[in-house]
C-alpha cells in the first residue's frame, strides 16, 4: 500500500478579500468534480488586512487533515504578495505559484521560489477580472478558474458552484463570474497545465457529499434532536453554532437569542430547559468561565442544558482565532461543589453531528448539564462526508412524565424522588398536579429548602449516583488504524484527523517496520472506566498527543485510572498539529528504541 496521492492548494490573501469564501468555493468545486477533500482556513483576529489563508488537500482517498507542503499557491493580494514567502517555502519542487502579473516579485520571494524549485506563474488576474467581469474584485474568481484549470477539473463543477454562490445576489453577477472563471480556467489550460506535473484521479461517480464544518454539524444535530431554544453571546469560535440557528430562525422553528452576556445566555437556556424545552448555549473559554456558576444551578436543580465550549488559544483572550485543547480539566471540574456533569469531545464531523444529538438526549435523560467541547480547528474544518451519515435521530427524553401519566397521578409529585439510579421521574411545571418550586439550596424530595443532615447525604448520593448510571452510557474510546500496533497515540477531540493521517503516513511507509495506531476519546466524562481499561490493555506503548501544554487527558487518565503514558507530544502555538511532525516524532521515539518490540 503506497502513500496517499494528494494535492494541496493554498489560497492566501488579506482578511476581507474573500479568501474564506473563495477557498470554500474551490473546495466545493473540486469535491463535485469527484475528489475527496479536506479544507480549513487560517485567519487572524482582525477584520480586514492581515494575512489569512485557506488550505485544501484533495485526494482520491478520504482526507482528514492538511499537509505541511503544498502543490499550488494562489495569492489574492497583489499588494502583500511578500507575505506569501513562508508559503512559497511550503511548495513542493515543481509546485505552482499563481499571482497577478502586476504584483512585483521581490528578491526574497525570488530566492524562496528558486530554493524550493517552484514555478512562478504571474497571470492577468486583475486584467481578466476587469475586462471580462468589469470589476477587479472578481480577480478571486479568475484565480479559482485558473486553479481548476491546472487541476483539470471539469469546468461545469466549478461553474455550478460559482453560479450558486452569486445567484443569491443577481443572475447578472452569476453570469459575469462564470465568464470570469472560465477565462481563468482557459488561461490555465493554455499556459499552466503543461507546467504542472502533479495530478489526482477524479471519480465522477462519487455522488452527493456534504461539506459541512464541525460547528454546523453540532448545530444541525442539536436541531434534529429537538433543540428549540438557543441563547448565546458571540465569541469566536463558538458563535457559528448559534449563527447556524439564527440564519434559519423561523424556518426551523427555533427561538434564538443573542443576549447581553454569557451569564444571561446560559441562564435563559436553563430557564427554558427548566420548563421543558430542549435548550442550549454556545461560547468559547472566556464566556464559558462566566457560565460556570449557572452550571451549578443546573446541576443542583437537575436541569438538562447543553453548553458548547469551542476552545481557542488561551489563557484569557489569548489567540482568539486559533486552536487549542486546554479547557478539558476546567470543564470537568467547573463550578464549585460536586455534581454530575457530562462532557462530550467529538473529533470528526460525524461525531459532531452525533454529539449534538447525544448531548440533548443525555441532558434530559440524566437531568444534568452536558458540555460539548470542540475547538477552533474542528469548528472550521470541512471534509466530504456522505449525507446518509447524518441520520434522523432517536429522541430519548428519559423519565419525563407525559400529560396522560400526570393526569393519572395519585400521590403528591416529588420532583427529587430518591431512586436507585439517582434519576427522578420528571414532570413539567404547568400541570395542576405537579406544582413545585426547586431551590439551589439543598432541598428535600419536594424541592423545599432543608439543612437536615440525613437528607443532605441522601440527596448528594442521589445526584452523584447519576454519574455512575451515566458512566455506562458513555461511549468508550475507539481505535483508529490497526487494532494491534507497536505504538498508540492517545488522543481526544479534534486531533482525530491528524492522528488518522499520521497513521496512514507512517504505516504506509515501507521503510517503517513497526505499526502505529491511535485511541481516540469522543466522550470523556464520566469516564467509562472498565471499557477504557479494556481498550488500554491492548496498548503496547502509549504516547499522549494533545493540542495543549499540560497533557490534560493524560492527567485525567492518571487521576481516574492510574494509567501512565510513556511519551508526551504537545503543541500549543495555536496551529493544528500536522501528520508530518507527528510522524517524525513517532519515528524518533522508535529510533530511541524506547520500545522493546
Amino acid at each position: 500500500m503506497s502513500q496517499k496521492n494528494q494535492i494541496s492548494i493554498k489560497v492566501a490573501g488579506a482578511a476581507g478579500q474573500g479568501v474564506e469564501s473563495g477557498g470554500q468555493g474551490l473546495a466545493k468545486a473540486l469535491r463535485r468534480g469527484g475528489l475527496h477533500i479536506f479544507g480549513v482556513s487560517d485567519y487572524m483576529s482582525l477584520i480586514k488586512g492581515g494575512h489569512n489563508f485557506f488550505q485544501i488537500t484533495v485526494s482520491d482517498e478520504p482526507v482528514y487533515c492538511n499537509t505541511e507542503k503544498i502543490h499550488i499557491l494562489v495569492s489574492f493580494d497583489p499588494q502583500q504578495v511578500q507575505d506569501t514567502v513562508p508559503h512559497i517555502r511550503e511548495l513542493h519542487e515543481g509546485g505552482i505559484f499563481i499571482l497577478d502579473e502586476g504584483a512585483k516579485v521581490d528578491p526574497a520571494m525570488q530566492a524562496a521560489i528558486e530554493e524550493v524549485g517552484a514555478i512562478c506563474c504571474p497571470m492577468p488576474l486583475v486584467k481578466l477580472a476587469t475586462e471580462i467581469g468589469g470589476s477587479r474584485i472578481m480577480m478571486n474568481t479568475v484565480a479559482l478558474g485558473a486553479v481548476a484549470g491546472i487541476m483539470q477539473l471539469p469546468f461545469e463543477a466549478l461553474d455550478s458552484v460559482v453560479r450558486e454562490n452569486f445567484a443569491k445576489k443577481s443572475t447578472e453577477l452569476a453570469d459575469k463570474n462564470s465568464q470570469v472563471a472560465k477565462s481563468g480556467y482557459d488561461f490555465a489550460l493554455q499556459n499552466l497545465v503543461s507546467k504542472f506535473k502533479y495530478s489526482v484521479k477524479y471519480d465522477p461517480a462519487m455522488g452527493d457529499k456534504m461539506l459541512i464544518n464541525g460547528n454546523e454539524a453540532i448545530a444541525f444535530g442539536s436541531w434534529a434532536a429537538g433543540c428549540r431554544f438557543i441563547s448565546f453571546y458571540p465569541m469566536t469560535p463558538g458563535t457559528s453554532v448559534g449563527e447556524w440557528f439564527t440564519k434559519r430562525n423561523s424556518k426551523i422553528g427555533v427561538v434564538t437569542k443573542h443576549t447581553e452576556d454569557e451569564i444571561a445566555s446560559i441562564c435563559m437556556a436553563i430557564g427554558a430547559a427548566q420548563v421543558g424545552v430542549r435548550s442550549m448555549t454556545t461560547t468559547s473559554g472566556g464566556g464559558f468561565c462566566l457560565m460556570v456558576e449557572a452550571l451549578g444551578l443546573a446541576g443542583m436543580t437537575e436541569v438538562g442544558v447543553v453548553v458548547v465550549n469551542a476552545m481557542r488559544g488561551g489563557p484569557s483572550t489569548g489567540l482568539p482565532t486559533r486552536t487549542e485543547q486546554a479547557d478539558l480539566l476546567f470543564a470537568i471540574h467547573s463550578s464549585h461543589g460536586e455534581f454530575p456533569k457530562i462532557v462530550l469531545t467529538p473529533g470528526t464531523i460525524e461525531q459532531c453531528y452525533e454529539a449534538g444529538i447525544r448531548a440533548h438526549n443525555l441532558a434530559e435523560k440524566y437531568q444534568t448539564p452536558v458540555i460539548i467541547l470542540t475547538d477552533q480547528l474542528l469548528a472550521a474544518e470541512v471534509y466530504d462526508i456522505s449525507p446518509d451519515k447524518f441520520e434522523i435521530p432517536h429522541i430519548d427524553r428519559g423519565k419525563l412524565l407525559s400529560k396522560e401519566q400526570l393526569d393519572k397521578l395519585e400521590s403528591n409529585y416529588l420532583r427529587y424522588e430518591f431512586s436507585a439510579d439517582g434519576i427522578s421521574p420528571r414532570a413539567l411545571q404547568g400541570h395542576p398536579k405537579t406544582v413545585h418550586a426547586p431551590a439551589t439550596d439543598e432541598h428535600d424530595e419536594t424541592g423545599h429548602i432543608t439543612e437536615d443532615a440525613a437528607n443532605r447525604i441522601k440527596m448528594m448520593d442521589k445526584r452523584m449516583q447519576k454519574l455512575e448510571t451515566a458512566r455506562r452510557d458513555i461511549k468508550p474510546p475507539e481505535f483508529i488504524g490497526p487494532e494491534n500496533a507497536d505504538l498508540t497515540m492517545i488522543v481526544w477531540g479534534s486531533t482525530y484527523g491528524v492522528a488518522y493521517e499520521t497513521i496512514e503516513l507512517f504505516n504506509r511507509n515501507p521503510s517503517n517496520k513497526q505499526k502505529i495506531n491511535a485511541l481516540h476519546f469522543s466522550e470523556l466524562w464520566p469516564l467509562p472506566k472498565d471499557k477504557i481499561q479494556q481498550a488500554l490493555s491492548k496498548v503496547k506503548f502509549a504516547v499522549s498527543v494533545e493540542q495543549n501544554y499540560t497533557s490534560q487527558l493524560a492527567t485525567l487518565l492518571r487521576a481516574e485510572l492510574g494509567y501512565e503514558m510513556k511519551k508526551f507530544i504537545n503543541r500549543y502555538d495555536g496551529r493544528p498539529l500536522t501528520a508530518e511532525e507527528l510522524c517524525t516524532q513517532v519515528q524518533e521515539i522508535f529510533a530511541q528504541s524506547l520500545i522493546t518490540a
Partner: protein
Amino acid sequence: MVITQERQTVTAKDFKTEQKSTWCPGCGDFGILSAVQMALVNAGVAPWQVLLVSGIGCGSKLPDYISANGYMTLHGRAVSIAAGAHLANTDLVTFAITGDGDGLGIGIGHAIHNMRRNVDIVHIIENNEVYGLTKGQYSPTSKRGFKTSTSPEGSIEFSVNPLALALTAGATFIGRSYSGDPKHAAGIIQQAMEHKGYALVEMLQTCPTYNKTQNNDWYKEQTYKIEEENPSYDNTNRLMAYELSQKDDGRYPMGVLFIDHSRPTYAEQVPALQQNKAALIDHSLDLDSQLFEKIKASYN
C-alpha cells in the same frame, strides 16, 4: 403579562403550604408574600399556572413559602432565567422576584436589557435598602451615609433610583408599593400581571433587623399615593414620570408611576413564535424530514 390561560376560581387556601418561614418576626417579606397571594387570587391565576422565579436573598425565599410553581435560582440571575422560561412557555404567568441587591446590584444588567426588550414578565424588587441574608451590608438603594458592616463610616455612594432607571431602560409598566400595605401592593401587582410587557414593581420593604429606622411608622410617614397628592398626574407621560422620579424630598410616591401600551412584547416579535403561535413547549419535537433533507442537500 398576556394571560393566555383560562382564569380559575382560587382562594388563599390553594396557595398555603406547610413549609415554615425563616424570616425574622415582623419582616416586610410577609406582607409581600400575602400581597402576591392576594394578587394571584384576585387575578384568578392558579398555583400551577404561575411561575415564581426568584434569586437569592431573604425575599427570594418567597417561593418556598407559597404553594405555587417556583424556581429559586441564583443571586442576580432571576430575571434572565424568568425570561428564558417565559419564552419557552408563554402560558405560564412568570414573575421574577428579587431583592434590591439582587435585582439592582449584581443583576442590574439583566433587568435593563430585558426591560428594553419588553420581555413580558412581572419583576418584583423587594427593596429593603439593605443586604438582609448576608447580615446587613449596604445595598445599591441604601441611602448615602447608611452605616453597615461594609460602610462603618456611612455609605459614600449615591443610591440607584429604581423607577428612573426602569423608565430610562424601557420598562413599559412601573409601579411602586409597600410591604406594610398588602392590599395596595396586591393591587399594583395585579395591574402589573395584567399589563402586556415588562412590568417592574418596586416593593418598599421593612427590614426590622438591619434597617431599623425605616420601620413601618417611618414608611407610613414617607410614602404617599400618587393619585392622592397629584390627581392630574399622567402616568403615560414619560417626562412627567421622570420628573416625579427625580423629586428628592425623600418621600416615596406609590402607585403606577408609568405605563406604556405602545410597545410590542418581545415574544410577540420572535420569528419562531410568530410562525407557530402556540407556546414553544407545545411545538412538536418531531423532525420535518423534508426540511431535514433540504438542509443536508444545501451542503452538497
